[in-house]
């Protein structure tokens, strides 16, 4: 593997300067060689875009930087493609024509940093609302104070009329009660076109992490990015910082992280099953699955002191131990949940009404899934065999044996099957790790600090790959913190899934990717009302890939 990485690094030298550090290869290239580099990586390395980061490095090097993060799953590495962007009239060549999955992240960089992407097929903003935002307000630039609001004090809303009959879903979600907005254009009962308008929850977490908080405080806010799978964010963040600072946390800390991550996955997937059954109108299933989930929540409370927001993570280790009596309790709960879950889930999934409402519904073709760089169970149900736990091993996963369930049905039913198998795998991982806890300290004694060092941390969240990228700054603070939550990669695929489906199936399809809007909206600034702009249309998104 190592020799393969060095070979790849050698080949990448044709495209620019190459730096190699454990698990991360960085290529500093320029616009002329960018296209060839991307094509080379897509064709010969089977690369998958994770995200795009814009960094305002004007204070350091008098330019901006754009970093495309690629995951090369076969080689277990991340490749960072860095481009320097001039300070005056910042603009850089877009890679969206080559990889449609880059659409959102490039537009986000454009909206929040004011870097233009030449040749980007969409002119519409993703996050910025032109009449609601102050002009020239680019909140992620370093000279923009974190306390300054970007909204115009008293904005004027206008909602553009659309042709045909359109059904608005949202700003509150039909399944998950989070603010986001879908606009479905229907012909009778069939959905012709779907539009998505999200980014309505302002939290400005990245800016907050870069300005007010230090590296020890951020794990707690990272945990609050998501209300369901928060711990995975805090692990991804700490891993990114640990990689930047060159710390290796003790084995026991890694085991405890893995155990808690799997507990979180079990509860999240069980919650998802409940939501799916609920939107299908099958409340018996909903109630029973959530009944099975309750002991998992109580177990988390026992191990960490809280049902959610575990708060046990810190840079360099964990804060709380799992002692013998708790180990016993974990085993008890795992056995109980496994027994009850296997007893019921197949019965639920074999009911004819569940099958009819989910089989062949919300199909995401393999080629579309690849093009859009979807992740997690959403990708695995479209027969893309990726799992960060196996492809970029972290925490204690190298010490556990587990299978990665993959299905080729591409529909809502396959997503359910993948998640069913994942729950069983997770329970087995918890059992393996908890009976084999190594006896080491819980955290490193001292955290050395390095200025301007970068790191990538990735975890497999219940919803898919979760990527954090950090650059350390001065005095124990971060210079840049970028979060790519899995729903960010998965939501664009919804527009493909919804097309041609029955309107009544829309909630089940939307719920099927387990969307988490608070994760996706973490940097954003608008609240409450939608409107003011035309959103990216399905046709436009499709045309990107052609």
């Amino acid at each position, binding site marked *: 593997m190592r020799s393969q990485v060095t070979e790849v690094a050698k080949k990448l030298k044709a495209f620019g300067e190459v730096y190699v550090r454990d698990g991360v290869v960085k290529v500093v290239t320029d616009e002329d060689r960018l296209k060839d580099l991307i094509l080379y990586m897509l064709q010969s390395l089977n690369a998958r875009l994770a995200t795009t980061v814009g960094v305002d490095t004007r204070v350091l090097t008098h330019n901006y930087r754009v970093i495309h993060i690629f995951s090369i799953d076969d080689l277990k590495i991340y490749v960072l493609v860095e481009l320097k962007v001039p300070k005056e009239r910042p603009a850089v060549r877009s890679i969206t024509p080559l990889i449609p999955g880059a659409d959102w992240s490039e537009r986000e960089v454009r909206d929040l940093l004011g870097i233009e992407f030449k040749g980007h097929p969409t002119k519409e903003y993703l996050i910025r609302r032109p009449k609601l935002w102050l002009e020239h307000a680019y909140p992620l630039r370093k000279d923009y104070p974190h306390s300054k609001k970007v909204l115009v004090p008293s904005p004027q809303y206008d909602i553009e009329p659309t042709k045909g009959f359109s059904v608005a879903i949202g700003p509150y979600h039909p399944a998950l009660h989070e603010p986001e907005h879908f606009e479905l254009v229907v012909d009778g009962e069939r959905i012709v076109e779907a539009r998505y308008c999200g980014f309505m929850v302002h939290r400005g977490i990245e800016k907050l992490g870069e300005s007010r908080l230090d590296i020890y405080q951020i794990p707690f806010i990272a945990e609050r990015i998501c209300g369901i799978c928060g711990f995975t964010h805090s692990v991804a963040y700490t891993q990114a910082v640990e990689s930047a600072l060159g710390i290796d946390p003790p084995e026991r800390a890694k085991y405890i992280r893995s155990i808690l991550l799997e507990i979180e996955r079990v509860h999240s997937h069980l919650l998802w099953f409940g939501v799916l059954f609920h939107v299908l109108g099958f409340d018996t299933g909903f109630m029973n699955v959530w009944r099975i989930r309750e002991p998992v929540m109580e177990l988390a*409370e026992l191990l960490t002191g809280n049902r959610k*927001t575990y708060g046990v993570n810190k840079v360099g280790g964990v804060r709380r131990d799992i002692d013998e009596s708790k180990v016993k309790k974990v085993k008890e709960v795992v056995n109980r949940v496994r027994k009850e879950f296997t007893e019921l889930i197949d019965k639920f999934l*074999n009911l004819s009404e569940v099958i009819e409402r989910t089989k062949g519904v919300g199909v995401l073709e393999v080629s579309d899934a690849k093009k859009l760089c979807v992740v997690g169970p959403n990708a695995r149900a479209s027969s893309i065999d990726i799992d960060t736990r196996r492809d970029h091993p972290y925490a204690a996963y190298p010490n556990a044996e587990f299978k990665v369930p993959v299905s080729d049905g591409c529909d809502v039913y396959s997503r359910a099957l993948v998640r069913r198998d994942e729950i069983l795998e997770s329970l087995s991982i918890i059992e393996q790790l908890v009976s084999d806890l190594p006896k080491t300290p819980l955290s490193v004694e001292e955290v050395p600090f390095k200025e301007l060092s970068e790191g990538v941390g990735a975890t497999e969240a219940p919803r898919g790959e979760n990527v954090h990228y950090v650059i350390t700054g001065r005095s124990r603070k971060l210079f840049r913190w970028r979060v790519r939550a899995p729903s960010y990669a998965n939501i664009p695929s919804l527009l493909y899934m919804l097309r041609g489906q029955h309107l009544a199936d829309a909630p089940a399809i939307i719920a099927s990717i387990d969307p988490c809007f608070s994760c996706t909206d973490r940097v954003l600034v608008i609240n409450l009302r939608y409107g003011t702009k035309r959103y990216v249309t399905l046709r436009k998104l499709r045309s990107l890939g052609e």
Partner: protein
Amino acid sequence: MSSVGRLDILKKALGIGVVTRKYPYVRVEPPEGFRGKPIIDPDKCLGCGACAEACPPKAISTEDSQEEGARYVKIFYGRCIFCGMCADVCPANAIELSKEFELASKERNDLYLVIKVPMVKCSVCGKYFTTAPLLLKSLENVPEHLRPIMTVCPECKSKLSSRFTSFARRVGS
């Protein structure tokens, strides 16, 4: 298959019965180690402010009152995220995360916990500069001949020491 499945589900549901707890009429006791409302023990608190420094959401603050000669350590539960960092860093183990979790209130003022810690006057300028318990605790680690200078505030100390240095320089030259 599916009709049999349906019967099984029904049978199972009947067997389980009611699992919903009658909270809040029936109390639910959180487990050991639950991270609830943090409480400061006023007898143990040194007023050092380490908790305020560590608190990620800045829910804890300290305020010195020269008139009253006291330092106020304040927790605002409205901002608290129950992470327990304050309890981790407290040198006197004065903070404990209790099992209390029902903190909703109609009055904002109910969400404050304020501890008053007496302060010590500087023996030179007469300004209050540190808390009494903190001074007593640090005295343990200071050799006896240096103890008198501990009641001098940092500003006066630096003035004194610069006077000493310039005196020493003059003598030396």
